[in-house]
């Protein structure tokens, strides 16, 4: 089975995933911009039992306007987010920021969400992608 490794910048916090992601998406919302520091966020999700985590992490919980909670796990040494879950993992999934992968080029977005917040100089173009405002 395919196996992939995500890690923080300094390398001490790692997530190893097996199998293919169940969802690949980009999000343009302001929370995702703040979390990443970028113009949008990109992430892939796996069933939690296909993710093995190694190393020390700090976590930060963000409650959205809708009341959904997301908990982000980041390396206390370099600050990189390596994984997050929603509502204490109620959906059984773990999301991994695309850039954390040692090889991030497997990714093809299926969903591009919160496009009402998308920057004018950016386009997400892929045959497979569904766009949501």
């Amino acid at each position, binding site marked *: 089975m395919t196996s992939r490794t995500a890690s923080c910048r300094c390398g001490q916090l790692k997530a190893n995933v097996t199998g293919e992601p169940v969802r690949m998406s980009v999000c343009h919302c302001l929370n995702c911009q703040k979390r990443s*520091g970028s113009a949008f966020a990109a992430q892939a999700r796996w069933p939690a039992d296909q993710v093995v985590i190694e190393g020390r992490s700090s976590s930060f919980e963000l409650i959205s306007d809708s009341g959904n909670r997301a908990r982000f796990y980041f390396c206390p040494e370099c600050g990189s987010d390596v994984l997050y879950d929603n509502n204490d993992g109620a959906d059984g999934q773990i999301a991994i920021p695309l850039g954390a992968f040692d090889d991030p080029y497997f990714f093809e977005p299926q969903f591009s969400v919160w496009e009402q917040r998308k*920057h004018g100089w950016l386009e997400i173009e892929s045959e497979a992608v569904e766009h949501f405002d």
Partner: protein
Amino acid sequence: MAEGDPVRVSVCHCLACQKRTGSALSAQARWEAECVKVEGNSSQWVRTADSGQQTTYNFCPVCGSTVYYGGGNFPELVAIPLGALDDPYFECIDYSVWERRKHRWIEILGESIEHRD
């Protein structure tokens, strides 16, 4: 807090920027150091590039967000990740660099943008 217009707004597709942001590219605006005022606690992480240049990233120890960084190619400037700005929307960006690492599903639009491999 940054005052005035940034001197440079850019996106970067390199792998180090992808790791830092967790996104498929990074976006940042740079100001002269004297235009930037910093408040609050930060932790630092220093990255040494293959060229030997060092960049110091300052992130919040509570939530992990990088709020500013400096050094590297532009030692006289302070860089602020676009997403960290309360209003991250600039009309256009000046540079798109490391495009050899660009994901093929991303397009960076704008006539005045300088693209570099």
